């Protein structure tokens, strides 16, 4: 973890970027994707490039790979790889370097492999393209690689198609492919962002191990300071196409100099391990009581062949007091999103009860439930997909209440007031969703839900698609709204750090069941279930029991 600070001779540098400027096509919000950026990747080190969306970190990676789309032009600068300047190199020479001297792994392992080719064929291909040797030699090497990245039964894995593999396994295949020709530099573009937290921990460990074993140089792109703390030797911080700060990991994480870095680090959600303090004890009846809720998905044919059933939600029970927040955390496939959809009756349950204000809504017909709909509202994950692009914000906000009988004038006035309340100006009423940023859209989504004056809000990964600084603002807004309106919340998230910030109680789900439920102090500092311990231990950049002060609520 300790980075050498002494002057570096050129041969210590595997990759050197000097004054790199990449133009964006006209009509974009900036003229440059990146401007005058310089950094060095030293041999045998891991360099993390961190920044929020639109900071230009992926453009930088693609420029080094020579994979920029045609409309984006490199206008000046030098990229030295193994002493060669690759800018202005012929496409053929560049192609020859790709996969051999520098290789890359990507964010989404589910789509990064060709679904029609076996894993083995895809690994062989990179060796064949660079004239590695006979097909037999390629095959042996591929199996060796599959063993090296820790995949079970490499011989069998060689003949598998990607769809048979989990996300983590596919990312291991990608890594095996990238390592095939022992490249000098490995570029990893958010390789763990799409993975579950425990898988993420394994993949980070794997990259770290391989890098150490082979003395490889790794350029690791991420938006997550937790990941940086986990693996970086040195760090480059980018904002809007500029490098605002760089240095050793220790230096940047512990004593950031640039205000942007400071803001970014402050916005990172940390495990608090502290329970939220609430003035009033929850003496009243629970607003929501879930008892033995079950949801089973059925697949396959009803007439012929075997029917596949998956129990997504299995005997789930919990209570939620008015004005409190229950966090539901779990990895993908744990059933947390299905639970959210059951609570708002977007899905029908197969058993158990949902007592909302004492009335079992699980068995109500849609017609009978409809008058209750306004009281349970949902905030969705993707602020880009959840707002109709053809409707104005005003229409989006008023159409629901008006359908439930509110006169237009009243709906309009309330919508304007709510927009102001969530931090948007009143002019937003007549504008369209595409005119807003992701964070602003999520504010619109929240305001829309609040139009109904709900008693219960279901937030399904409501901040997962947002940059950390925006995430912190939205969490703060939700907290403020809860204090003002006394709304109860079910907050579904895969991110335990986020959950620790906003929840009074947290339920940990695994394979459809709640394996542990308790206040954050219990879950994070004294977890009872083995699975919870595993989850908490996997959070990147956190050492349980060593909670840092929360800057997000400052």
């Amino acid at each position, binding site marked *: 973890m300790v980075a050498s600070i002494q002057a570096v001779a050129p041969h210590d540098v595997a990759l050197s970027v000097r004054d790199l400027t990449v133009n964006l096509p006209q009509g974009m919000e900036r003229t440059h994707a990146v401007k005058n950026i310089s950094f060095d990747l030293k041999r045998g080190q891991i360099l993390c490039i961190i920044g929020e969306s639109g900071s230009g970190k992926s453009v930088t990676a693609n420029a080094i*790979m020579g*994979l920029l789309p045609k409309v984006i032009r490199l206008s000046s600068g030098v990229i030295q790889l193994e002493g060669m300047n690759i800018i202005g190199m012929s496409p053929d020479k560049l*192609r*020859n*370097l*790709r*996969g*051999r001297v520098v*290789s*890359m792994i*990507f964010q*989404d392992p589910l*789509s*990064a*492999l*060709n*679904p*029609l*080719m*076996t894993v083995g064929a895809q690994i062989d*291909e*990179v060796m064949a*393209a*660079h004239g590695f040797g006979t097909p037999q030699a390629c095959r042996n090497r591929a199996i060796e690689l599959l063993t090296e990245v820790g995949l079970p039964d490499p011989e069998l894995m060689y003949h598998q*198609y990607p*769809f*048979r593999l989990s996300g983590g396994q596919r990312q291991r295949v*990608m890594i095996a*492919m*990238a390592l095939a020709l022992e490249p000098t530099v490995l570029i990893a573009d958010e390789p763990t962002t799409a993975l579950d937290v425990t898988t993420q921990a394994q993949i980070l460990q794997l990259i770290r191990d391989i890098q150490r074993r082979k003395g490889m140089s790794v350029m690791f792109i991420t938006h997550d300071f937790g990941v940086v703390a986990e693996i970086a030797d040195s760090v480059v911080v980018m904002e809007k196409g500029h490098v605002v700060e760089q240095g050793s990991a220790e230096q940047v994480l512990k004593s950031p100099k640039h205000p942007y870095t400071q803001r970014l680090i402050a916005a990172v959600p940390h495990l608090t391990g502290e329970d939220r303090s609430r003035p009033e004890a929850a003496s009243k009846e629970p607003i929501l009581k879930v008892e033995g809720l079950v949801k089973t998905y059925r697949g*396959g*044919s009803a*007439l*012929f*062949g*075997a029917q596949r059933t998956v129990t997504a939600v299995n005997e789930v029970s919990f209570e939620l007091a008015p004005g409190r927040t229950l966090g539901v955390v779990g990895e993908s496939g744990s059933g947390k999103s299905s639970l959210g959809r059951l609570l708002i009756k977007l899905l029908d349950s197969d058993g158990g009860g949902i007592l909302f204000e004492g009335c079992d809504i699980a068995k109500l017909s849609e017609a009978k439930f409809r008058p209750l709909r306004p009281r349970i509202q949902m905030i969705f994950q993707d602020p880009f997909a959840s707002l109709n692009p053809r409707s104005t914000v005003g229409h989006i906000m008023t159409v629901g209440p008006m359908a439930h009988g509110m006169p237009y004038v009243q709906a309009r006035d309330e919508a304007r007031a709510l927009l102001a309340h969530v931090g948007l100006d009143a002019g937003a009423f007549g504008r369209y969703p595409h005119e807003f940023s992701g964070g602003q859209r999520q504010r619109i989504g929240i305001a829309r839900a609040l139009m109904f004056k709900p008693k219960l809000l279901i937030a399904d990964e409501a901040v997962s698609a947002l940059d950390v600084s925006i995430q912190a603002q939205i969490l703060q807004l939700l907290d403020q709204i809860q204090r003002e309106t006394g709304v109860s919340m079910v907050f579904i998230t895969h991110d335990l750090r986020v959950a620790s910030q906003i929840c009074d109680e947290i339920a940990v789900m695994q394979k459809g069941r709640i394996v542990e439920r308790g206040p954050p102090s219990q879950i994070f500092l004294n977890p009872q279930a083995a699975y919870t311990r595993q989850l908490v231990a996997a959070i990147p950049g956190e050492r349980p029991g060593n909670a840092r002060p929360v800057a997000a609520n400052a």
Partner: protein
Amino acid sequence: MRGFLLNRLSQSLVLLVIVSIIGFGILNLLPGGPLAQFGLDPGMTQQDIERLKGLLGLDRPIWIQYLDWAWRLVRGDWGHSFRDGAPVLEVIGSHLFATLLLMGSSTVIAISIGAWIGIRGATRRYSLFDYLATVGAMVALSVPTFWFGLVGIYVFSLKLGWLPAGNMSEIGDGSILGYLHHLILPSIVLSLVHVAIWSRYMRTATLDAISQDFVKTARAKGLSERRILMKHVVGNALLPMITLAGMQLPSVLTGALVTETVFTWPGMGRLFLDSLGYSDYPVVMGLLMFSAILVLLGNLIADIVVAIVDPRIRLA
């Protein structure tokens, strides 16, 4: 896979029964009925018509007629043409070859050229080639086929005299060369619109495939553009095309009404039109069932081929 096939086959059978009931019902609900044309014939008395009805079994209740017809159909007896008494299957069979020749050749032209244009247009998006292909496809799609047919006949048959204006062969000439000579013009005219359709579909499918992440992976591996295209793009782009080709199958065998009419091509399209004109219900119903079976068969074959090609379905 076996469960899937059984499932699809049983669905297809149910669909066939429904199609046959609707077809039979509509045909028999039409005013007049098959013997209406004789009503105007002064040589036919009302008694003659009644006698004919009894002979053909048309005086029975419609559902009995249907069951009788359906039962014979299942046993392979598709009935006899009202026109000349020839068995329906034989009538269909005698027109099948002509249609197969025309539609088969034009479909092969359409798929191969259309796919080529589509892939090339997608890999060179917004190039001159792409623009020309787009404009060309729009023209081919908007101009009616008969116009191309007439222009083709005018230019190549009347003015230049290179190609025959119609029919499948000269009377008395059964040589392959003769057939091919007659085939050129109609199959090219017919394929024009299909080339247009296929090139558009193929362009979209290729663009979809190119924008996939695994193509970026392939580039990052240092593969040549040619290998990326052949190995990673085209394979994935062709998957949705298989379904389209399956839907194309029935029209390959049921013929092209307009083109066959313009070129007096003795195919299934013209048979259908003529049979309707003569109220030759057994032949019309036979053709209806024939094309319904082909539609279902085409889809089934396409699904099976996709399942064979795509490991996600084959092994799932």
